[in-house]
């Protein structure tokens, strides 16, 4: 398929359709509304299910219901709506049901604004509802990645019977750039054996997240943890640039990672030995790779569009071995390449002084 000019939100919606989406339930919220609008047209055109729910609370529970029947189903929202979906997400996670969720993140807290942000990092990687689990979280840095990750999200969700969140910041949702959509995949009409379809010639299937006995609930949790361990081992994704020979590593994802790329490129041109690690999965975080790289570098600079959320994962991976700096903008402010370059410059100079002092000792 040829490349075409596509807006992020529309591209995600169309990618989901082509990945065989059978049902969508959602509630309008900027900056993701075009996604819902596109599906309101396309899903109906294709004879598939589209429903505008009365709230995000209802939307995620409709998704839960539909997902229990084993179809490909998804919802989308932006930060305040994701907050409302937390309850439903926890129930979905507690019953091993595959579900895809798109979060086009905006500035917060509170009603905040409709500008791009990465303020949901904690909300999607850590606290997506009560209980012990992490959803799989994919963070696209371009419209093309948004498309690819949406398709991937369905495959991962079904493979692991787990929640997969595509966490795109508002910039990715709103911008237009050339990208290539996948071929239309046929809808999978076959339902998995655990699905609720009516107990015809078999025992009833039951989907629940309640285990009253402590040891049963713990046994379930252990099963979830084993699954997540497998996810951690196999699904961490990231891209690297200029990491073969560097003193300072910049870590950033999504739009912040993309802007950091320009800044790092410029820093390289100015002779600084800087590299970039751009996580594509926020959970699992590419901690193993980062800790390997830690042995080869002198410092890390984290760049985010929040107050420093992934920063905590970077610190865990680096484990206190080298200094970790941070540059972030909040409230929907997108950093300019120059600002990041200045931050790189500052950290690089600090590093040079430290290295010189080390040599003197």
């Amino acid at each position: 398929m040829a490349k075409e000019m596509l807006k992020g939100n529309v591209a995600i919606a169309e990618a989901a359709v082509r990945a065989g989406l059978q049902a969508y339930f959602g509630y309008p919220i900027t900056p993701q509304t075009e996604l819902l609008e596109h599906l309101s047209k396309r899903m109906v055109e294709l004879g598939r299910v589209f429903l505008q729910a009365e709230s995000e609370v209802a939307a995620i529970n409709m998704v839960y219901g539909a997902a229990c029947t084993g179809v490909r189903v998804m919802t989308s929202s932006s930060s305040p709506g994701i907050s409302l979906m937390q309850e439903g997400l926890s129930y979905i996670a507690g019953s091993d049901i595959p579900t895809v969720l798109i979060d086009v993140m905006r500035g917060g807290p509170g009603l905040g604004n409709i500008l791009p942000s990465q303020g949901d990092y904690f909300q999607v990687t850590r606290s997506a509802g009560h209980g012990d689990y992490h959803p799989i979280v994919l963070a696209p840095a371009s419209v093309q990645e948004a498309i690819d990750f949406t398709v991937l999200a369905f495959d991962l969700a079904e493979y692991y019977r787990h929640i997969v969140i595509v966490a795109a910041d508002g910039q990715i949702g709103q911008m237009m750039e050339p990208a290539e959509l996948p071929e239309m995949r046929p809808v999978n009409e076959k339902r998995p054996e655990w699905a609720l379809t009516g107990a015809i010639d078999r025992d009833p299937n039951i989907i629940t997240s309640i285990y009253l006995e402590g040891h049963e609930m713990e046994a379930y949790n252990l099963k979830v943890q084993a699954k997540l361990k497998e996810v951690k081992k196999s699904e961490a994704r990231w891209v690297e640039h200029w990491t073969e020979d560097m003193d300072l590593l910049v870590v950033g994802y999504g739009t912040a990672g993309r802007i950091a790329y320009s800044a790092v490129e410029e820093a390289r041109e100015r002779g600084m030995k800087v590299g970039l690690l751009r996580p594509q999965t926020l959970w699992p975080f590419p901690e193993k790779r980062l800790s390997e790289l830690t042995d080869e570098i002198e410092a890390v600079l984290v760049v985010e569009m929040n107050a420093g959320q992934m920063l905590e994962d970077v610190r865990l991976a680096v484990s206190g071995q080298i200094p970790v700096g941070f540059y972030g903008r909040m409230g929907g402010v997108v950093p300019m390449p120059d600002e990041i370059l200045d931050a790189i410059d500052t950290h690089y100079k600090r590093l040079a002084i430290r290295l010189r002092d080390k040599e003197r000792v």
Partner: protein
Amino acid sequence: MSTTVCVPNMEVVYERPIALADVHTHYCPGCTHGTAHRLLAEALDELHMQDRAILVASVGCSVFSYKYFNVDSCEAAHGRAPAMATGIKRVNPDNIVVTYQGDGDLASIGIAEAIHAATRGDNITIVFINNAIYGMTGGQMAPTSLPGQRTNSSPLGRDVRSAGYPMRVSELLSQLDGTAYIVRRSLHDAKNVRKAKKALLTALKVQEAGLGFSMVEMLSSCPTNWGMNPQEALQWVEDSMLPYYPIGDYKVIDAVRELM
């Protein structure tokens, strides 16, 4: 454990419905949740829906109802059963989708989901158990608790000046155009139990015919949290609940009458 004891030359007059699982329930003695379960199972049997039904259990004393029916089931979050049912029914229109909800679940935390499923005319059936109290959490005030009713969170009796008035859910939902069949029945005596069963049969037929949203509200007893013996509790349904919650057909669209 076997369902029927076969004695030669004797007619079987009472059997466990196929749709009712052969297990002990956890309901208190004298609780009419059990009666409602039996009625729903009988109705599913009579309409040959056991292998097509999908039950959405809710949060309340009936939280384990998914164990008590021989049908595909799931367990919704508190109040969200109608949304879950909508999700199921939209992708599986050929299944018979039933939610089973208490009054705290439906009329309080889940009223938005219930109203919107009703107004959309979602082709689902709600079995609504109104016992005027939060049973599972130990007897707190429900949106349906009567004025002056003493509960563990209204120890001096429900004071309508502060707690507001009880909600008549059937009347409320019947105002919505998407609804096809909304009735209130009671489980306090044999005659009314039979009528409740008939209403369930109609509601399920409404869904099968694709006529829209159906709900059967059943006035139900909670002897444990009302602090009464089972007999007193049934009497309380009759004496105290019935006047506030009249039995009646609140919405029966013409197409439904043809099914009855």
